[in-house]
């Protein structure tokens, strides 16, 4: 397949930028949705030795196709280990063996608190979302958390409607930090969107560190519910390479389910 590296979609840029974040990482817990394709791209590019952990109960997956869901049979065939879900959550995750938890989100706030439960009131929601799945315990126990999501006024909000998974600084309880409360994870460290890359400072708040090619600061500001901190100088994300685009288009997502 010939690939025109000059043209790419915002979603492709987001997936590529998220995959690159996994360079140098060892054990990654793969969340539902966009993380699935980003992590599988990383495994084929910047992180061939990455150990993929799926909450369905697989350590060291070697998926031969992009898993249709996080419970696809392709994550089993050729894997290092199939575990019960109990072992996966208790020994691998809560036991501290997961370096990165890679999550998606419906809503996020500036501190990386994530909502995947409801839009509106919990008891009578306007929109019922899937809920936690494993995200709540991943956000607490993975050594760090990466987030991939599209940003908009509805998703990047001043106040999330429901806190499904805790972000930074984890200080609600009498000012106690994550570490003081005995949590293994230091929380979200990076959020990759269709417009840019955000990292968290010592106060636990995210700031825009890199802008994707084609995106503008104005566009960033108009698609979030708070005034973001913007790095100076602001970085520019390197555009997807022909190799990355070919892998996404020909191998991982030929149907365009994630990238349209």
């Amino acid at each position, binding site marked *: 397949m010939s690939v025109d590296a000059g043209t790419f979609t915002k979603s492709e840029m987001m997936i590529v930028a998220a995959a690159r974040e996994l360079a140098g990482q060892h054990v990654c817990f793969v969340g*539902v949705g966009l993380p699935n394709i980003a992590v599988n791209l990383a495994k084929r590019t910047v992180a061939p030795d990455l150990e993929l952990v799926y909450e369905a*109960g697989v350590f060291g997956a070697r998926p031969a196709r992009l898993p249709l869901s996080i419970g696809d049979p392709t994550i089993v065939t050729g894997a290092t280990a*199939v575990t019960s879900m109990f072992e996966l959550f208790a020994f691998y995750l*809560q036991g501290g063996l997961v370096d990165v938890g890679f999550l998606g989100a419906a809503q996020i706030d500036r501190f990386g608190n994530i909502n995947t439960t409801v839009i509106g009131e919990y008891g*009578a*929601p306007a929109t019922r979302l899937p809920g936690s799945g*494993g995200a*709540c315990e991943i956000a607490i126990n993975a050594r760090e958390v990466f987030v991939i999501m599209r940003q908009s006024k509805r998703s990047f909000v001043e106040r999330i409607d*429901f*806190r499904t998974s805790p972000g930074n600084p984890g200080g609600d309880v009498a000012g106690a930090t994550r570490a003081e409360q005995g949590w293994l994870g230091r929380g979200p460290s990076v959020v990759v969107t269709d417009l840019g890359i955000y990292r968290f400072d010592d106060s636990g708040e995210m700031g825009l560190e890199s802008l994707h090619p084609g995106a503008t600061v104005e566009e960033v500001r108009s698609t979030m519910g708070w005034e973001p901190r913007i790095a100076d100088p602001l970085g520019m994300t390197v555009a997807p390479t022909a190799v990355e685009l070919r892998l996404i288009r020909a191998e991982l997502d030929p149907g365009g389910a994630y990238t349209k």
Partner: protein
Amino acid sequence: MRDAVADLVRDGDTVAIEGFTHLISFAAGHEIIRQRKRDLTLARLTPDVIYDQMVAGGVARKLVFSWLGNPGVGGLNAIRRRIEAAPVAASGEPALEVEEYSHFGMVGRYVAGASNLPFFPLRSYFETDMPKANPLIRPIESPYGDGIVYAVPPLRPDVTIVHAQRADENGNTQVWGLLGCQKEAAFAAERVIVVVEELVDESVVRADPNRTIIPGLIVDAVVVEPFGAHPSYVQGAYDRDNRFYLDWDPISRDEDATQAWLREWVHDLAGRAAYVEKLGEKRVATLRPGRAPSGVVDYGDYR
């Protein structure tokens, strides 16, 4: 299947059809709909399309879960119509009760249920709204003075139903591929129904005891129902029928289309054999995977 569901699933029961994406007993779910069971509490980590169909079929009063979705596709629309404010108000029907945990919380509930313990402790839920949404999730102080963890209560289903590759006639059940929490859910239950692709001789089980996840000791009924997990999958036997999961989305968005589907594919069919026949050989054939046999291990003969 008809007898197993008639005898072992009772109105008002808590029913757990477990299996994480893999080995979901759609055949049992459909039989429960067909027999018009009522007021069930449906427990399952991931309600999936099967609970969407069962809720649409009118069998459920309450849902106990940790992730509510059509995996890889989107939402569960029939269930959402019974939870979201606008459709619930429009229908005038009572909303579906929900009791919600995280995956580890649900797994831990089965572990506590299976182990006869009063709760399961876990490091989750800190600084979230989960304990507010579900007051059964409670913080507890470690008796050894090293901080707070959260507790979830035991889950002891009246009936757990699992699908498996094979069992012998005594119910000794073997599974490979994703194991989910079927073992925990089965040991936690009062009654257990095992549905299998293949009934095998006891000697097949005894030749490979490491693969047994559920002993016949706790099994009340074994049902042989090839292709009984479709449209979910069975490792080594058939793939997930992704087209079905995609097709379910538009069908389930419309209440009339949903009910028409249930009539055509559940109520108007006698059982799974008729369902497989209606599905057609061609469609079934597209779901067969290539081969990837395991190596053979030697257990040794000790006399």
